[in-house]
């Protein structure tokens, strides 16, 4: 596995973890979330 492939898998894991956190993770009180209502 070369460095480019490793980078792809790292980015992939981050993307999956982000989406999981966004839709299934426990909501922490945010200090500043702007107008991000979470629907788009």
């Amino acid at each position, binding site marked *: 596995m070369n460095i480019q492939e490793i980078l792809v898998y790292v*980015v992939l894991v981050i993307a999956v973890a982000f989406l999981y956190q966004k839709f299934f993770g426990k909501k922490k009180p945010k200090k500043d979330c702007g107008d991000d209502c979470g629907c788009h």
Partner: protein
Amino acid sequence: MTHKTIKVALIGNPNTGKTSVFNQLTGLRQQVGNYPGITVEKKIGSCKLSENVKATILDLPGTYSLNASSIDENVVIELLMNKNDEYFPDVAVVVTEVENLKRNLLLFTQIKDLEIPTILVINMSDRMAKKGIDLDIPFLEKELKTKIALVSSRKNIGIDSIKNLILNYESLSTEPCLNASVIDVDYFDKLRRAFPNQLLYKLWLVITQDVNFLNLDRNEVQSNFTKSKTELKRLQQKETIKRYQFINDTLKIGQKIDVSKATDIRAKLDRVLTHKFFGYVIFFGILMLIFQSIFNWSSVPMDFIDETFTSLASYAKSHLPAGEFTNLIAEGIIPGIGGIVIFVPQIAFLFLFISVLEESGYMSRVVFLMDKIMRRYGLSGKSVVPLISGTACAIPAIMSARNIENWKERLITILVTPFTTCSARLPVYAILISLIIPDEKILGFFNLQGLTLMVLYLLGFFMAIVSAIILNKVLQFKSKSYFVVEMPSYKIPMFKNVGINVLEKTKAFVFGAGKIILAISIILWFLGSHGPKETFGNAQQIVENEVYSSKLKINPSVIEDNVAAYKLENSYIGIIGRSIEPVIKPLGYDWKIGIAVVTSFAAREVFVGTLATIYSVGNSDDETTIKNKMAAEIKPDGTKIFNFATGVSLLLFYAFAMQCISTLAIVKKETNSWKWPIIQLIFMSGFAYLVALSAYQILK
């Protein structure tokens, strides 16, 4: 050098220009957030008062009084009652409006009675001459026991005087305006004896309001001093009457209004804009103008963005070292982000128009106009606010239904609001319309694409009304309701306010959606670029074998395209897509569209980003824009995938489907039950499927 920070709370009735004052004081030094646990917007800004003193200004939600009837109003009371709150103000700045001083002063007198140093800002002073209003400021300052800043936030007049007053807040009197105990002397005497160290008016608010008060045991206060609800209501009314008597007496001397000097055109405008026929014609005309402009004005910047991202992807592919990660950047990340950034001009224009309509005072007339229609269908006049703000996002729109007192009307509003076209649907509509509707003018003026967009928006409103009628008949709750709307004065919108609003909303759209789209694009690219070894891994060999066995002479570039197409079809995403194809095929969609429809449950605009990623993976031509890639997609029989029938079917599906996980979550939260979001999901998506199916089968 020591730096001092003064904490300021900006408080006022809605439509007093409080936010304009906030913008003038803080400029762009603002942070927008939410209050913990609730989704009421919290705006904090900072303002330099002198060389070593600055102010932290908290712009509190607009409220009419300290008798809370909504969550927004609770926020104000909870802050003012809790000295331990990190934002408890050193000084309160109450913003009032010169034309509605009498009503605005009710809140001022209540805050004053909490013995917080309070500054009175009388805004819109530039209108005094036009309205024939004259104020005796020294008299008012003496009677109201405060300092007054006469300002015009629109014309940036008097802002410095607010800063000066804040700087010298320690010299302000904290003496109350009114002795609240006069409403029931015996009762207040008992209270005073039981809690000698507490402020009487605070105790009264603890008893009458549902707020947290950290230093006192609510139960102790309420169990010993509670009265029946009717009695408390009667006393509250008595308090309000006493306050208005005080305000009337003060203004009788301090404010002179000479109507003969007024040069008012408000009444004339109102007669036309809320006319039972012309009011609707004008509203319809304004809507037409908005949607025409969204398409016409944004085409140039959109084309520019599209071409820029296409060139960027091509540049990345040719200049970065060849490999998997470069492919991810060129085929996944850049097209995915491009798929959202391209719609920034349209989103910005939409919010520009909405902000201008709100700022000018016209939106309140629309609310009033629509109330006449809404009432017939089981909705409240207040339902108009969620329905209109639903054009931005259904989440805050559904939450804004909290101020509808009647549960049945509120529930109906919550259930039908997702039908209104939110900004997330705009990218989907825009790209599909540009693919299937010709860019032509009808009657020499109306752009056909803009007209189609308007029809889709109206369709959303229409479906919301139809659903409301059905729900009104089905839901058997008995209740009464009333409707009060404030008509603010007409104003020329302030460029600064409109600009900040457009900037904030566009930023939220790009960064809110951008992160999700980026993550989904990465996953989609991975699923589209990997697959089972026996088919995906041997794609080149399988396709070449097929070509050789057919004994046809085929151009090498065509073989390359065939390999790319074969790979995509046999990738993980291809396998998932083809497994759902039987369900979506009757609607005219292929598996690629199916994947885009499924992923757009995360957020509707993901649809475009998904297709951009899928078509980038399956396309050897890096120079083509998203729109061109979609237009070039063909079925096995050689006809276009995005033909008129499929396009209409998709447009109708997106017009009606419940396709936003976050909206479902907020409906659950607001109704405190999974029952309603599940009903909503099944009804809306089922209906969308049937309509899309019918449309495709008729038009194909």
